């Protein structure tokens, strides 16, 4: 049976608990791939809905704003010089679920959160890099996502890893 990611994980923390129980031992790369695909499909549907055709950073900003419309904790702080700065603060759904149910925060962000955003960006331009410059699961007060045109990588600086 294929891996499925619950569509309502960002509103219902309980499903993340079930997700972890079910896929905690699953190969991380495969979960990331599904999550990336989910973000990609979501991004494409937003582009189609809004009739967007561009592949630049400004188009991605529109897609991100539309995607985050119902998410009060994520906010675009700035779009300038070919980069987008998206900040996640407040009571983010992953943080709420992890802290209240003792779920592995880093694992959930790395398999669900970051690949999803990376996929969302790839819907606009597959060469967009996503760099996580600040991470709350490491103790930072907020998560900072930097999107800029590059080689289409997901870069987690403190881990020293980057994934295509």
């Amino acid at each position, binding site marked *: 049976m294929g891996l499925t990611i619950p569509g309502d994980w960002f*509103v219902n*923390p309980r499903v993340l608990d079930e997700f972890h129980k079910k896929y905690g031992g699953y190969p991380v790369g495969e979960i990331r791939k599904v999550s990336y695909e989910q973000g990609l499909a979501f991004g494409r549907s937003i582009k189609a809905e809004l009739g967007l055709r561009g592949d630049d950073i400004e188009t991605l900003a529109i897609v991100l704003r539309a995607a985050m*419309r*119902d*998410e*009060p*904790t994520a906010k675009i702080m700035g779009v300038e010089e070919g980069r987008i700065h998206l900040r996640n*603060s*407040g*009571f983010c*759904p992953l*943080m*709420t*679920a992890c*802290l*209240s*149910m*003792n779920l592995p*925060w880093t694992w959930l962000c790395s398999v669900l959160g970051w690949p999803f955003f990376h996929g969302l960006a790839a819907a606009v331009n597959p060469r967009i890099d996503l760099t996580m410059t600040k991470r*709350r*699961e490491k*103790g930072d*007060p*907020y998560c900072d996502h930097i999107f800029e045109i590059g080689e289409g990588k997901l870069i987690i600086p403190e881990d020293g890893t980057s994934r295509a």
Partner: protein
Amino acid sequence: MEPQIVLEKMQEKHGGDYSKDDRALEFKSGRVSGYVHCETEDKIQSYLVALSGVDLGEKSDSSLLSWDKDPELIEDLKQFLPDNPVCNFTLRFIHVKNKKEALALVQRYDWNKRRLKCAGIIGDFLLFSRLAKSGSPGKTHSREFVILPLEGSGIDVNDAWTLSFDLFSLTILSGQMYLLYNDRRLMFEQMEASETSTQMRINEIVAQLRRPVEEIKPGDLEDILKEITVQFSRLSTLGSTMTRDHVKIKAIFRSLRGLLRGLNESPYENYMTITSDVIEEHEGIIVPFEVFIGRAEALHSQLNTVLDSVRTYLGIQQQKMSIMEQTSSREQLVRLVNLQEILHKLEILVVAFYLTEMARIVIETVSHENAGLLTAAFIPFALLISILIGKVLHKPH
């Protein structure tokens, strides 16, 4: 590693026998006698490891030099125990000839900058203690005890075991509290930033609601309601988790206080008692739970205020709409009445015209030559008759 496996591995290396319930191992390694006891509660493992370099009845060496480094055997046994324990209490029973020697030892210990913060008398023992390391994130919370027999009377083995097990129970309770604290540490750390960000968003919403009524669309209110519902749900999830853990930690703290009360400690000179020091320390780790709950409640009430504002706003909008509806229906009624009056007048004219035409037919038959004149003369009568007919027909029932 399961406690049973830990004991098995220790036995493999040092030999020895299990106690009756298999939860303890007694062994002898050279001149050192060893005893390891384990307790498991709620998946938390606690170990009491006791070592003695002297045989029963023999007096120990009171040298302080060995205090600063653990004997080789302790280091060896540590390999079998879980890494990075939440809590680690060290008890050192020292034999002294008299009280003078005891105080000299303690003073030397203090000079070594390992200040013994508190002291007290429990049973026949004089205890000194200090918090070696606080339970900061990822670090073991450590406390040291130096235990001396009062008046140099020698160590009573049974009393020493009783005290050791009491302090072991204290370690377990302290460990449970620090474990809960460590589990929630990230929540405490994230509260500040999350609160600030939510507060900013609340201010933005309030500013949005302050705009003129005409500028706010029903869709905006729907979005605000949706957003507040999401915030409410997340805050409630975190708040309820914290409240649950606060209740748990308070219950453990009550047991810890009860245990300390049971030790019946008496103060020693001007030192703070160990009971006060331990209670003060553990009260300190309950505070962040209370602060978090308080802050979450404050945010909850602010979100409620925003919800009230949205409700009030909707109420005002509804009132306005109903006033507008009332005004509009009154105007419509006036228009209808006017139309009816016009119709009545038209009705009179139509009837009068009809009567005049009827009269003209009759007059032409009777007097053809004067028909025009007579018909014209009949018109006022026709109008009068028409008014009368109208009044009869529209007479209210």
